[in-house]
């Protein structure tokens, strides 16, 4: 079986799983649906590993394979095929996606127990994994767009999974609308590229870019900017980022999978895949890098003041993806993707741990109510620490190596990118601070009520189920969210999944230690062979210097957080008082929601209302429809006057007409 066959099998497993669970959704007893889903994804991971093995068995020059199942080429000469491209980049992505997805499925098996939408959840989750795999395995633009759209749909379905919550449905719509903006950009970019090159398949496009486009000319820059729009919308970068914090309305494993490890990295994958185009349009690449940098800073600052634990982690995701986007936009492809992998590990871990502590708080997500869970949730505490250290970039965790890989490359390229690198270090400091703010607030100091209860072995249950965001009472008669709250200490599947991720977060960095080995770079080389940065290597010396600086910054960040939130309690309150303006600005998330509401949402609604009342009712209803009918009615009324009902008039008419006819014949015969 060739590598591409395994590639198709990788795609088939989650699809079959989703359909199977979906069709039997009311009939799966207990948690069987969850186990089926987990097994399907695990099988997919196995096939991904087999694909890797097969690919490694080939010589590096022959590692870009395509396989097509069906040719859609029926009209307009568009050579759209149902084809996948199996090359190092896509294999890397499917390994990460299916691997992390398996663990998250395992976690969800116990997390979502007792929820009435259990089977629906796993059907959707499998469908999501299928869509993401389709996206990364796509061999042409058309299938990429299909996967892109499917992923957006799956995200919508899963964000508004508990659809009885208004906040959840609104968040789902918000996410979907912003994603659609990205979709439009992607599609138009495809049009432009197809218009110039005449093909939508990736490999031919990449080989012929140089002939069809002028270097840094308007068409290619516009196309790349539109691709950036798509990438930014999917990866929640400024200014299309407002959907990600609201997407935390979905169940925590969904946040872990979609909004940390996989979907939001689709933008990074897109830019990495289209690197040929971006290198041919440096303007667009620079715009992308600056956008990533801006996001990095914005998200890190906002995460400092967020009180909802999941939103802190969401902004952290946004920030880290800013790093990745910066990386792939400036040419640090392997570094960016390395960070993608490690980020998937520790971010999913952090979300899972957050789910555990939220379970202990029986659904309450606010950091203001949590404290002192160290004794009550020891396992979760350790997981948080591992994930937090990896995120902050503390040696020897994986995040340290991957983050500084990117920043090192930026410094190496010099010029304006140095500034981006310095901003990256500033962001790393902030990362350390807000991550450990979260951990210290939740786990240190005096235990809160729920923690005390748990120390005595009793899991707290709220009297009245409440919406975590608005606090309003919820109707749980509908069956979801389920009444059960689960913590990692008591559930084996959750423990297993989290431990696996923790191990990976710790040792995941060993594959790319500067000066010692660069497994990822070498593995990805066939894909990026046509990049001008492929031979740019940061030498070991500066790389280690950067790593040391990164470590120092991480330690500084953790200690600042320790001082503010553990040592000198009350410092944060004083700081908030002193910098009140800044605090308000940050807690409103830099007012992006308000700006977008003012600039886009309100005019759109106003236009919609105008069209509905004036255009629809007035013009189309009044003039076109009613106008036509009134003309017909008037006409028929006029004609109806001939039907008077008087027999004698009818007879008179008949006589006159007979007279006329006879006259005609008389005249015509003479």
């Amino acid at each position: 079986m060739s590598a591409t066959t395994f590639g198709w099998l990788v795609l088939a497993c989650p699809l079959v799983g989703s359909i199977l669970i979906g069709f039997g959704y009311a009939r799966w007893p207990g948690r069987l649906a969850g186990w089926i889903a987990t097994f399907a994804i695990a099988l997919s991971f196995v096939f991904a590993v087999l694909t890797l093995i097969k690919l490694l068995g080939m010589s590096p020059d022959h590692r870009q394979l395509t396989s097509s199942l069906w040719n859609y080429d029926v009209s307009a000469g568009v050579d759209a095929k149902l084809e996948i491209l199996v090359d190092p980049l896509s294999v890397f992505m499917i390994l990460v996606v299916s691997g992390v997805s398996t663990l998250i499925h395992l976690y969800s098996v116990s997390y979502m127990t007792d929820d009435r939408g259990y089977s629906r959840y796993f059907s959707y989750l499998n469908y999501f994994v299928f869509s993401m795999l389709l996206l990364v395995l796509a061999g042409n633009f058309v299938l990429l767009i299909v996967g892109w759209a499917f992923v957006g749909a799956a995200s919508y379905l899963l964000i508004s999974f508990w659809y009885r919550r208004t906040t959840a449905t609104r968040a789902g719509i918000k996410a979907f609308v912003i994603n659609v903006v990205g979709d439009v950009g992607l599609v138009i970019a495809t049009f432009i590229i197809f218009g110039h090159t005449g093909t939508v398949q990736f490999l031919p496009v990449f080989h012929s870019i140089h002939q069809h486009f002028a270097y840094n000319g308007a068409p290619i820059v516009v196309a790349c900017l539109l691709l950036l729009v798509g990438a930014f919308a999917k990866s929640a970068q400024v200014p299309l980022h407002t959907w990600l914090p609201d997407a935390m309305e979905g169940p925590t494993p969904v946040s872990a999978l979609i909004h940390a490890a996989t979907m939001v990295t689709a933008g990074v994958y897109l830019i990495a895949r289209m690197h040929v185009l971006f290198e041919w349009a440096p303007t667009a690449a620079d715009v992308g890098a600056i956008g990533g940098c801006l996001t990095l800073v914005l998200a890190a600052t906002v995460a400092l003041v967020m009180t909802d634990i999941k939103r802190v982690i969401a902004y952290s995701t946004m920030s880290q993806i800013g790093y990745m986007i910066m990386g792939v936009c400036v040419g640090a492809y392997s570094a960016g993707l390395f960070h993608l992998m490690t980020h998937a590990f520790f971010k999913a871990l952090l979300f899972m741990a957050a789910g555990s502590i939220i379970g202990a708080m029986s659904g309450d997500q606010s950091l203001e109510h949590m404290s002192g869970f160290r004794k009550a949730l020891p396992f979760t505490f350790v997981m948080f620490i591992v994930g937090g250290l990896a995120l902050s970039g503390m040696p020897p965790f994986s995040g340290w190596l991957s983050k500084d890989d990117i920043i090192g490359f930026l410094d190496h390229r010099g010029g304006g990118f140095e500034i981006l690198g310095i901003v990256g270090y500033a962001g790393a400091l902030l990362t350390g601070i807000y991550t450990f703010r979260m951990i210290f607030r939740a786990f240190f100091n005096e235990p809160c009520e729920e923690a005390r209860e748990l120390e005595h072995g009793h899991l707290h249950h709220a009297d009245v189920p409440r919406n975590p965001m608005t606090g309003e009472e919820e109707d749980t008669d509908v069956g979801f969210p389920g009444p059960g709250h689960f913590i990692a200490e008591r559930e084996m599947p959750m423990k297993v999944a989290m431990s696996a991720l923790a191990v990976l977060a710790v040792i995941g960095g060993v594959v790319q230690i500067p000066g010692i080995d660069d497994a990822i770079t070498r593995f990805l080389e066939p894909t990026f062979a046509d990049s001008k940065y492929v031979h740019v290597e940061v030498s070991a010396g500066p790389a280690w210097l950067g790593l040391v600086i990164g470590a120092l910054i991480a330690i500084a960040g953790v200690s600042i957080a320790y001082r503010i939130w553990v040592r000198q309690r009350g410092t944060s309150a004083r700081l908030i008082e002193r910098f009140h303006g800044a605090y308000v600005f940050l807690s409103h998330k830099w007012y992006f929601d308000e700006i977008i509401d003012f600039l886009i949402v309100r005019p759109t609604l106003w236009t919609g209302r105008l069209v509905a009342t004036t255009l629809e009712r007035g013009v189309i209803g009044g003039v076109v429809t009613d106008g036509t009918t009134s003309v017909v009615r008037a006409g028929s009324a006029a004609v109806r006057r001939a039907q008077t009902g008087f027999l004698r008039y009818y007879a008179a008419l008949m006589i006159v007409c007979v007279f006329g006819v006879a006259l005609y014949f008389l005249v015509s015969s003479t």
Partner: protein
Amino acid sequence: MNIGWYLAVSAVIFCIGAGGVLVRRNPLVVLLCLELMLNAANLALVAFARMWGNEDGQVFALIVMVVAACEVTVGLGLVVAIYRRRLPIDVDELNELQG
């Protein structure tokens, strides 16, 4: 007599009948005027039968008589029904079939 004379008589009777339909308001009389018109047609048919020397016209005239009889039957039935419902026996008043 020339056949033409008969045709002239037929035309005159037909036109008298037509005038009667237009002028009279009692439905019974209107039906009578209709009979006049039918008879005029009958006369013309028989005259032409004589002219051509074959009996097709006479057969036609007999069938016309049958039709006239049927029409009278149904028409008078209608008039009787109208009268039974106490509606005015006046074609100008019976104008419900209008648009």
